[in-house]
């Protein structure tokens, strides 16, 4: 396998997030985090409740901007972006998977998957074709016209996975993706994420489950009190041909 240049897709440069509360109380949710995520990595952000992992995740996903520091997505400092620019960026480069699925209840599964494409101005025919293709990919080809309340938790999460792929983003951000699922369905969802990673997608997963993080992620960032406490890398990682970028140096 030929050596390919490693591309840093996300870089956090000493970012902090401070919330101004009432009575001049300031809460530092994230305190000077720096990290680099390479294209094709499967990264887990671990930490107990209140460790700042969700805040960090929001900033990585360009849902929020840091109080201090810089965030680079594809070498662009998104900390300086306007909200509409961030929205456009999210739609194009990042796919979100949430713990509580977050599907739009009054849209069918197909319409939910088509939704991110609407915001990118993709024409209807292409949207339909792509949504159908993605739903088939997550084994929901027979549930396209179902509404979220007609699906099981696992099915809803698979719709969310399909939706996250709608605009073919480079990065998938998964916030506790198995948190609301039983262990069997959770395993299935993780298999999908693994598969996407093998296809070259960068996966960033937030979890409080150390076993899950260590079982799937190549790199785990352990957060505590808004800081990176430690970084662990998976040993004995068996590279796959699709994961060319990941196989090196492990």
């Amino acid at each position: 396998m030929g050596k390919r240049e490693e591309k840093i897709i996300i870089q956090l440069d000493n970012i902090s997030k401070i919330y101004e509360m009432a009575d001049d109380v300031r809460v530092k949710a994230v305190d000077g985090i720096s990290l680099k995520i390479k294209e094709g990595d499967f990264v887990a952000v671990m930490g107990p409740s209140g460790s700042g992992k969700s805040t960090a995740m929001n900033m990585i996903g360009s849902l929020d901007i840091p109080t201090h520091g810089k965030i680079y997505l594809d070498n662009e400092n998104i900390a300086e972006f306007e909200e509409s620019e961030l929205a456009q960026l999210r739609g194009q480069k990042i796919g979100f998977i949430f713990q509580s699925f977050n599907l739009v209840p009054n849209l069918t599964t197909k319409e939910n998957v088509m939704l991110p494409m609407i915001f990118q101005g993709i024409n209807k025919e292409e949207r339909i074709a792509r949504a159908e293709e993605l739903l088939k990919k997550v084994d929901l080809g027979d549930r396209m016209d179902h509404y979220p309340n007609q699906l099981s938790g696992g099915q809803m999460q698979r719709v969310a996975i399909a939706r996250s792929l709608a605009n073919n983003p480079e990065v998938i951000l998964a916030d506790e993706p198995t948190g609301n699922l039983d262990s069997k369905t959770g395993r299935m969802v993780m298999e999908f994420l693994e598969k996407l990673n093998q296809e070259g997608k960068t996966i960033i997963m937030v979890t409080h489950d150390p076993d899950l993080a260590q079982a799937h992620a190549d790199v785990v960032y352990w957060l505590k009190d808004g800081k990176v406490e430690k970084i662990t890398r998976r040993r004995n990682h068996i590279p796959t041909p699709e994961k060319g970028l990941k196989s090196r140096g492990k």
Partner: protein
Amino acid sequence: MIKDSFFLAFKNIRHKGLRSWLTILGIFIGITTVVALISLGNGLKMAVNSQFGVSSTEVITVQAGGLNSYGPPGSGVVNPLTLEDLDAIKRLGTVEIAIRRNIPSGKLEFNNIVGFGFSGSVPDGEDREFVYDMMGVEIETGRLLKDGDGKKVVLGYNFYAEGDKSGFGKRIYPGDEVLIQDEGFEVVGIAKKQGSFLTDNIIYMNDKPLEELMGYGDDIGLIAIKVKDKNLMEKAKIEIEKALRKTRNVDVGEEDFEVSTPEATLGTVNQILTGVGIFVGLIAGISIFVGGIGIINTMTTSVLERRKEIGIMKAIGAKNSHIFMMFFVESGLMGLIGGIIGVLAGVLIGYLGISGINNFIGATSHIKIDYMLISLTLLGSFLIGSIAGIAPAMQAAKQNPVDALRG
């Protein structure tokens, strides 16, 4: 995106079910009231028009002033119109035809039942056609009167009405004999139904036998005038007034006669209808305003309820403008749906109302659908909804995605 906003808005409205319909109700009531009022108003004008027996807009009528509020034209007046007045009018340059008409009331007996009605005089010669044209008289069965018909009459359609509706226990056919003021007359024809209380109940009789029967001599009940050009109506009216002031020796402001154009005749009715229209329009306006407030209320609640959905949409790439457009269009669409249903209900109420009026007064007027009005109403209802949605849509658009995602 606009098209997609409509799609998403429609899905949301449907999803909200009963609440959407209750919100739409406010706009619906307002629009229904407006459309029903205008449709009914137009229909009423037509019905009133037909009740006045005005089928030609080029005819001016002159009546003497006096206590004639409850009787036919010319009855009970102190100074009736005279042949001198008629001659003066005939000499005017703007006048093409001027004829005398007498419409005295009297009794009619048939089938041993006595009734009361009006007899309308029909002049001889060319003037006869003018009267028929002016009154819109056509024959249903039998024939119209002709010169030299002495003891012969043509009856309005109501005498021919089935069964007891004629008022005489049975229908009166051509060939039957009726007693008018106790004298026998042969019915030679029945006029077609005109939908007017006046013309459908009249007895047409030639001038001479009617004068001999009623003995009104040279007194004239009404002068009907056809002007040379309908654009000359106002000029002719002024000339006639001037001529009559001279023949009747009265000053300006002391006229004992009235010169009416059809527009003027309908003017009073229109004035009343306009007054009623303003009142109902005010109520409709309040209703639409309250409907708009209802939309603001629903949309504001909706923004609060759908915070998480807004957060999801922002997370998957929706810009503030997309979110604004979704709520704005949804709000406008609720107004538009209210407008569409309101227009349909308004037209239906107008139609039923006109049918009721027709049945009540025996008119045959039809509802007039004003497509321009409907288009403007629909556009207006969409705009009201949209305007009501601006503030909630702005509120939705400026939601912080992280806060919104927390719900």
